[in-house]
């Protein structure tokens, strides 16, 4: 009996693959722990030093993004998960087995993407909310906390989940392109964490533009309530970040169909 395989089958298969390897658990634990842990740490540090903070800095203080500051590290953990989801297929040779079962290559990549997107969005959003509430608990000791009902706050906390999901996809897209775990992880860390702050040093108008549009500089605006100078708007920034990984994914998908497996 031959039943034509459908996207539904491949999705279920990719789900089984994702939850049946330890690296998924470890990267998820690392993402949750770093996002919440650093969020708490920074909120606590802010609260205990608040008396020494200058008035000028107090005026631009963003309680939401302070509690979500751990995302700067959490993004790496979840991006590594995104990398591993596909790079281990290449490092183990499993890709040949996978493509023999699912010869429609784009369907395989699409299923991987959707599963990763779903799990990172759910876990990322929950993590973001936990980090927010714990962070506010510390900040409230000196009365500088914010609330979900305040303008833009709910968007920013949901934005934490959105940004983490985008980071996962960024990792997946890069690894689908590079097909090598270590190389992809190196580039992900560089592109999301190391390089973005340095773009500030670029001179002139085009330098400002590069800084604004650069990966996490753009994407993390969705987690902020008050925007710094020289930044994109929350949704504009998130759209740019999404374009980054979508373009990389498109190139990877094009090559996936053409290259030998």
């Amino acid at each position, binding site marked *: 009996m031959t039943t034509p*395989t459908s996207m539904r089958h491949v999705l279920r298969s990719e789900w089984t693959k994702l939850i049946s390897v330890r690296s998924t658990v470890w990267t998820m634990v690392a993402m949750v722990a770093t996002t919440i842990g650093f969020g708490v740490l920074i909120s606590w540090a802010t609260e205990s030093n608040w008396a020494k903070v200058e008035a000028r800095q107090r005026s631009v203080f963003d309680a939401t993004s302070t509690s979500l500051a751990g995302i700067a590290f959490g993004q790496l953990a979840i991006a590594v998960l995104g990398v591993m989801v596909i790079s281990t297929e290449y490092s183990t*040779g499993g890709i040949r087995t996978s493509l023999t*079962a699912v010869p429609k290559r784009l369907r395989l990549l699409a299923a991987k993407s959707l599963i990763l997107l779903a799990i990172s969005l759910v876990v990322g959003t929950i993590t973001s909310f936990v980090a927010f509430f714990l962070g506010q608990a510390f900040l409230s000791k000196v009365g500088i906390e914010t609330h979900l009902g305040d303008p833009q706050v709910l968007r920013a906390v949901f934005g934490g989940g959105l940004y983490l999901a985008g980071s996962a996809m960024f990792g997946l897209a890069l690894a689908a392109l590079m097909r090598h775990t270590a190389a992809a992880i190196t580039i992900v860390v560089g592109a999301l964490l190391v390089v973005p702050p340095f773009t500030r040093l670029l001179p002139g108008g085009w330098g400002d533009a590069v800084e604004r549009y650069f990966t996490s500089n753009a994407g993390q605006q969705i987690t902020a309530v008050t925007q710094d100078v020289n930044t994109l708007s929350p949704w504009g920034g998130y759209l740019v970040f999404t374009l980054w990984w979508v373009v990389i994914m498109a190139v990877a998908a094009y090559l996936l169909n053409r290259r030998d497996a």
Partner: protein
Amino acid sequence: MIEVQGLTKTFGDKVAVDNLSFTVRPGVVTGFLGPNGAGKSTTMRLILGLDRPDSGTALVNGHPYGSLPGPLFEVGALLDAKDVHGGRTARSHLLALAQSNGISSKRVDEVLELTGISSVAGKRIKGFSLGMSQRLGIAATLLGDPKVLMFDEPVNGLDPEGILWIRNFMRYLAGQGRTVFVSSHLMSEMAVTADHLIVVGRGRLMADMTTEAFIESSSTNAVRVKSPQAVELNQALVDRGFQVTTVDGYLEVARAECAQVGDVAAEHHLTIHELFEERASLEEAFMELTKDSVEYHTEAFPGDPFGAPQGESA
């Protein structure tokens, strides 16, 4: 049924598969024989749509592999038993494969049972011996109960027990009317496993015939004879048009039968002390056929009782 037509694949300027055409039929074990580097694995990857051919087509049950609606129901392929994520358990590996083609988890238990690895189903694959991995790979090929099965050097590195198991399993599958296509670089292995042979060298087709016919056609039958009147016997045989050489004190008569040589001796009243057939071994016959196509010649070191070392196959 597998139909390969004019298949060509190059890697850089290296021609791995060179205008290859053949058909693999159901109900028999078809051996895909060739020295290491002959292009067997590449051909199999091309059939499965894993590699893109430069030209030519490969059809499985009349369709390109990539357009099969439910590939695991039609083809079970095992290229390399190590092509799995070692961090998964055997069961979850098989389950993920099964689910991708809409196959039930009940079937996963069945194939685990069939291949005798139920007891390690919950263990992570990275701890498996080669024999266990091979069985797991075969279990995966059986998930969709396919009519076509393809194995790339399945006995490589296995112990005699494992080799025997695989050999019998293939014969069993072919006996059920399935198409079984199995590659090897060992003629001796193919001689006892395959009914039909497709022989390749340097990516080119060298022979496509029954194993029996192949052995028949490539064996250089000769007769050896010992006689105290060797000079006279030699002359008599040459007069009859035989090709005779002297080897280790024997006369070796090419392409002859014992009876013919015996008759010639009797006609001339010559005494014979020994008379026997000298058959080239299968391995020798195969090497003879493919000697010009072997990619890397390895010189046997002098005094090496085992001949040239066998290279690891890709």
